[in-house]
């Protein structure tokens, strides 16, 4: 139970300030990136008309997510943003699944990972909004329906970052805590594999998908 909430940090003093690195999140996200690279190489090596297992899996991933992006953003924009969507989903799903391997932890359990991805989605969505509508029409939306609503509209936009990142963080963190506490209470007999299957694989995949969907929807709302 003592491991609950323990974070390994590397603190480097830098001219009066402190640079803090959460080593867990960094190392585990590197492992996830490595896994994605290996998957990419395996899926594209020895490509053929009769595909091997990995190629089928890769094509399935890309075509499903591409279709999803096309539904929300239209054909033109999907060409630009579908690679982002595929990469985001693959990264998140592996991040959420890696915790079921003993001694590894989900990078998404650290709020910094979902928050940075949420901020990234926010900036991309607003960049798309300015690019497609022009700055004037984009800025005008904040003063609707009345002029005085502008601060609340801006807070509402910022609340989207909070909601998208805390949703992922809270689910993964909550699942990890439940697995830890229940394993501790039952002396790791019988229950942990089922809990790992539910909170790790099932909830992890759903939340990765929800995060990706919401990013796409935020982009499409800004674009229209």
């Amino acid at each position, binding site marked *: 139970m003592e491991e609950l909430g323990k974070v390994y940090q590397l603190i480097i003093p830098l001219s009066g300030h402190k640079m803090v690195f959460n080593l867990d999140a960094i190392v585990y996200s590197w492992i996830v990136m490595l896994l994605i690279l290996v998957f990419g190489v395996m899926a594209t090596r020895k490509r053929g008309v009769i595909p091997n297992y990995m190629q089928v899996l890769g094509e399935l991933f890309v075509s499903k997510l591409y279709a999803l992006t096309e539904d929300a953003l239209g054909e033109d924009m999907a060409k630009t943003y579908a690679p982002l969507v595929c990469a985001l989903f693959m990264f998140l799903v592996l991040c959420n699944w890696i915790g079921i391997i003993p001694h590894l932890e989900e990078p998404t359990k650290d709020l910094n990972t979902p928050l940075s991805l949420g901020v990234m989605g926010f900036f991309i969505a607003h960049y798309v909004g300015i690019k497609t509508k022009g700055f004037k029409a984009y800025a005008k939306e904040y003063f609707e329906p009345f002029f005085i609503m502008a601060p609340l509209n801006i807070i509402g936009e910022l*609340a989207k970052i909070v909601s998208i990142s805390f949703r992922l963080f809270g689910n993964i963190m*909550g699942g990890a805590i439940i697995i830890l506490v229940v394993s501790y209470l039952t002396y790791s007999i019988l229950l942990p594999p089922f809990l790992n299957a*539910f909170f790790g694989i099932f*909830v992890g995949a759903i939340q990765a998908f*929800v995060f990706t969907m919401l990013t796409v929807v935020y982009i499409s709302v800004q674009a229209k």
Partner: protein
Amino acid sequence: MEQDIQTWVNLAAYLGGGLSIGFGAIGAAIGEGYTASQANSAISRNPALAGDVFKSMLVGQAIAESASVFALVVAMILLFSNIPADSFVTVAAVFAAGLSMGFGAIGSGVGAGFPAGAACVGMVRQPSVSGKLTTNMLIGSAVCQTPSIFALVVSFILIFSDFGSYPLWPTWGAILGAGLAAGLSAIGSGIGGGIVAGASSEGIARQPAAVTPVTNIMLLGQAIAQTPAILGLLVAFILIFKEFGASDTIAPAMALLGSGLCMGIGGIGPGIGEGIASSGGVKWIARNEKDIGTLTRTMLVGMAVAESTAIYAMVISLVLIFVV
């Protein structure tokens, strides 16, 4: 009678544990009862499928119960673990942990009953899609549990954090406020998410061809209906992790408690409202898949407007924390 800190902490732990499972039992029981009634109405329409409906009723009820099981886990920990007693802040923290999980389990329990009931009825209407309906019900009711998981996270942080170095005034107000913010705001989102998932199960039974878009829009609607609970989680985190200077007056503690109450109660309505808004979207997309773009956009805008009251509540509670 000697009343040291340990006595008070034990007292708060017993009270918190009782309230946790006491409130936590409300929601799941209502949800399960609703599921059973829908299952009966389904069986009476087509008794030949009684076995399938019975199975799916039990699965749905088992998931609806998980929020209550979380409350039970918190209550067991409060009753049986030795909580170190450093200061009187721990008394507030232990009590708030019970309140948070107890309130937080209500919404998810009620909510998870809707998809299970709709799946039972849908299975009878359209027996060929019972597999897809079960999957949809599982996803919908699993996502319904998210608000109660947030309340669980807050109550574990409250139980296991060390508040020894914090001044009693006004920290106790902040701690109690954090529990109430996370717990109460989860009620609305849990029920709202359930309404959406129920509409989606019904929609799939009416139009089995529309499984993919309906499931996607359901996830989207549930995710957005969870926003009030997430804002409650944010306010709870700020209240727990921000250090407040010691004060001699009662006002700062009340401001912090009020801030938690404001976000908690303010989050109930928007959660349910957004759920209703999104259930309309999901239901009509199943019947009119062609106009999915327009329907989704209207649904999202409607939900954003329904959410604005939760954002007002958050603004006021942040003002109470940082300005007052």
